[in-house]
């Protein structure tokens, strides 16, 4: 397998949530979320109630994948920041530690300059945690973390009722 799968634990999840909660406030943003490059939502903060975060996550990953493909074609490694400007809301997308995607949605109450500044700091902190998680996955999982091993055929069959 080319990359190890991402695993999230209570402790790291709390740390990540704290960072993006703070980013939301300090950047005056409406919504902040963190997505795995494969399109899985990791964490979100802000007014998420009316937003389809699952679709947002998948399309963000698709967007990053497509621009990453474009980057390679013109000899760039990747475009680490994308910015989409709308009539009301703007989208700031950046890659953290080559592995996860940080998305900030903001309107006129904030500005691109402020978002950029706050994202930079948050990215560094997030990267540290993500790297820690990836190491933790590579190391052998503890018995307590190995719950999946107990899944039986019966459990799987029951999923489809």
């Amino acid at each position: 397998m080319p990359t190890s799968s991402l695993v999230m634990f209570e402790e790291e999840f709390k740390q990540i949530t704290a960072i993006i909660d703070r980013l939301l406030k300090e950047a005056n943003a409406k919504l902040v979320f963190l997505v795995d490059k494969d399109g899985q939502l990791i964490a979100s903060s802000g007014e998420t109630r009316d937003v389809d975060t699952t679709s947002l996550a998948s399309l963000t990953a698709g967007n990053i994948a497509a621009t990453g493909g474009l980057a390679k074609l013109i000899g760039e490694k990747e475009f680490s920041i994308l910015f989409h400007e709308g009539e009301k809301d703007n989208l700031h997308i950046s890659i953290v530690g080559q592995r996860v995607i940080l998305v900030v949605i903001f309107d006129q109450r904030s500005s691109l300059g402020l978002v950029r500044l706050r994202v930079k700091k948050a990215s560094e902190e997030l990267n540290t945690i993500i790297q820690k998680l990836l190491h933790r996955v590579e190391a052998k999982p503890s018995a307590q973390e190995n719950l999946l091993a107990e899944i039986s055929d019966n459990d799987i069959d029951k999923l489809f009722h």
Partner: protein
Amino acid sequence: MSFINYSSREINCKIVYYGPGLCGKTTNLQFIFKKTNPEHRGKMISLATETERTLFFDFLPLSLGDIKGFKTRFHLYTVPGQIFYDASRKLILKGVDGIVFVADSQIERMDANIESFENMQTNLKEQSYDLANIPYVIQYNKRDLPNVVPLSELKKVLNVNGAPDFEAVAATGAGVFETLKAVVKLVLIELKKGT
């Protein structure tokens, strides 16, 4: 790649429907969408051309219930089957946990099936995956049409490895959930091995 969240107790996996143009990948997802309780699925997103050919991907998130206290979520994607969208197919394959190869049973699509299957293997290899290590199933679709290749012949050509395989008529839904269930099962078994 699967994403296991011990904090929110969720297992997330990615399943990709692969196969030649017009074989019925999008139709599979549309049927699953239609027949799944809205509580257990999200919106289906189709990035398609004016003529409803898949341009980048279709996406359908499903949540299938709990296993040992973990919510299981499956993200279903289709690739665009048309040959010239190869760059997009490569992107969609990234992080895949399980594959459904959808073949078009019509005689005149046999070459397209073979070409697509080989293309899938090439694209997997490019990302250092090996089909031998990835859970996958095969679906022989469009069994309702008159000009179809006999099942034994399809198996011989497309399923040399003896993966679980199913006949289907995605347009009416026959075989669609059997196929999905089989790949989900393989993915979970693989996940269990990996941990």
